[in-house]
Structure formats: structure tokens, C-alpha cells
């Protein structure tokens, strides 16, 4: 019974994430695309919960669906949502090449999973209640992956400084623009 419930939740979340992803790339107004992406991120957070990654599900909702998407919506509201008609000028050779390349990516991954990994992916490891919780994440982050933690902080600091410089008023002065 619990198994069936997990499957039902999985199918609903999978349909939600795929449908909202298709909606993101097919809305002409970027504002609606951003709203659809919030649905995609929320569906993926449900997936993370099914994979017993509770901390990452919370981080997904807080960081992505919260902070990042609010920033997106602010910028879209600031520059005005300039509608760009998707697929307006018919299927040019670039669009056909894009669809072929994306299809090749998909077939590549599915065939690799189906052929190479066949039966070995069927039984997952057993995990305890601590798996994916804040305690376990923090322990691994501050012991085994301390370097990655520090580099992440430097990347975030650099991005913040870069955002301030890109958005600052000083770039609008004539000599800076020349």
C-alpha cells in the first residue's frame, strides 16, 4: 500500500515537473515562464523528499523557489516583459538542428541507462533516518568536503561583487561607456 502511494506521488510529481518545464519553454511572456519554473522547482522538491533528501528539498524551496525566482520576477518586472514569440518564423534549419541535438541527448542517456546499467540499478541501498537530514549534510560538508564548502563561499562572494558591479550606476557615466 505504501509502495503504491509512493508511485502515485512520483507519477504526479513527474508529470508536474515535465509539464511545467514544457510550459517554461513555450510561454511567450517570460513572466509566465518564471511562474511555471516555480512549479517545476516545487515538483522537484517533492522528488527530493521521495529520495529522502529532506534538507535539499527545504533548500530547493527556500533558495530556488524563494530567493532566486523572486530575483527573476523582479528583473522581468524591471525590464518589462517583452514578449518574444516562440517558434514564430517557422521551422528553420536551426530549430530542426536544435530538436535533433536535444533528441540525441535524450536517446543517449536512455540507451546508456537501459543497456549498460540494466539490472544493477534495481535495488537501492538501505538508509537510516539521519540520511539527508541537516545533521548528516553538515557533518559531511564540514569534514570530507570542507574545501568544496570554502570554494562555494568564494564563488558566492564573487558573484555578489560581480552583480553589484554590473548593476551599479557608475557604468552609465559617459567615460565608462566609451
Amino acid at each position, binding site marked *: 500500500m505504501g509502495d503504491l502511494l509512493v508511485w502515485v506521488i512520483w507519477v504526479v510529481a513527474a508529470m508536474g515537473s515535465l509539464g511545467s518545464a514544457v510550459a517554461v519553454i513555450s510561454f511567450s511572456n517570460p513572466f509566465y515562464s518564471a511562474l511555471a519554473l516555480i512549479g517545476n522547482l516545487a515538483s522537484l522538491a517533492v522528488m527530493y523528499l521521495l529520495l529522502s533528501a529532506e534538507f535539499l528539498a527545504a533548500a530547493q524551496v527556500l533558495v530556488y523557489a524563494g530567493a532566486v525566482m523572486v*530575483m527573476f520576477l523582479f528583473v522581468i518586472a524591471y525590464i518589462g516583459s517583452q514578449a518574444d514569440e516562440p517558434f514564430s518564423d517557422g521551422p528553420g534549419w536551426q530549430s530542426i538542428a*536544435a530538436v535533433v541535438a536535444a533528441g540525441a541527448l*535524450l536517446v543517449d542517456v536512455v540507451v546508456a541507462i537501459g543497456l549498460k546499467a540494466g539490472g544493477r540499478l534495481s535495488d537501492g541501498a538501505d538508509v537510516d533516518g539521519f540520511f539527508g537530514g541537516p545533521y548528516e549534510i553538515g557533518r559531511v560538508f564540514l569534514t570530507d568536503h570542507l574545501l568544496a564548502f570554502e570554494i562555494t563561499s568564494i564563488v558566492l562572494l564573487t558573484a555578489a561583487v560581480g552583480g553589484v558591479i554590473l548593476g551599479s550606476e557608475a557604468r552609465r557615466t559617459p567615460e565608462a561607456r566609451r
Partner: protein
Amino acid sequence: MRGPDVSWYIVLSAFLFTTGALGVLLRRSPLTVLLSLEIMLNSANLALIGFSRHLGETDGQIFALAVMAVAASEVVVGLGLIVALHRSNAPLDVDKLISLRG
């Protein structure tokens, strides 16, 4: 309570990645390209977390957190670029933005 095994998650992740790649390749507005990039990054995160659960190791989740941090940085820089382009009255169309300092 077993649910679907990891290959289902990987196939879903492949479909999401393909959708994001289609968005990046087909759309012209840099805002929509950034949104499609987010889909691609999140599909990679789904694969990482799926394998993390499959192997019973937390390392994949650490990597997914690092991907989230890099994605946040990328959004900050990308949106900063779009705002700077908008201020200099450049066309917001990736097919027309073909030269720097042009």
C-alpha cells in the same frame, strides 16, 4: 515503501535536461534562456540526488548543494548582464547580440 528505483529518476532527469536544452537552443529572449538553464541544472541535481539515495552516500547531495550555489551565482551574473544590456538599449535577443562593445 520502496517506490520507483533510480533508473526512473534518471530517465525523468534526461527528459527534463532535453526540455531545458530545447529551450536554450530554440528561444531568443535571454531571460527565457536563463530559465531553461535552470531546468537543465535542476535535472542534473535530480540525477545526483537519485544516485546519492541509490548508493546510500551523502556525497551526491553535497554536490547538488554546490550546484545550487553555482546556479544562484550564475543567475546573479546573468540577470546583471541582462539589466546592463537593457540600460544600454541593446536588443534583448540572443540572435542580435553578436558583438561585444559593438
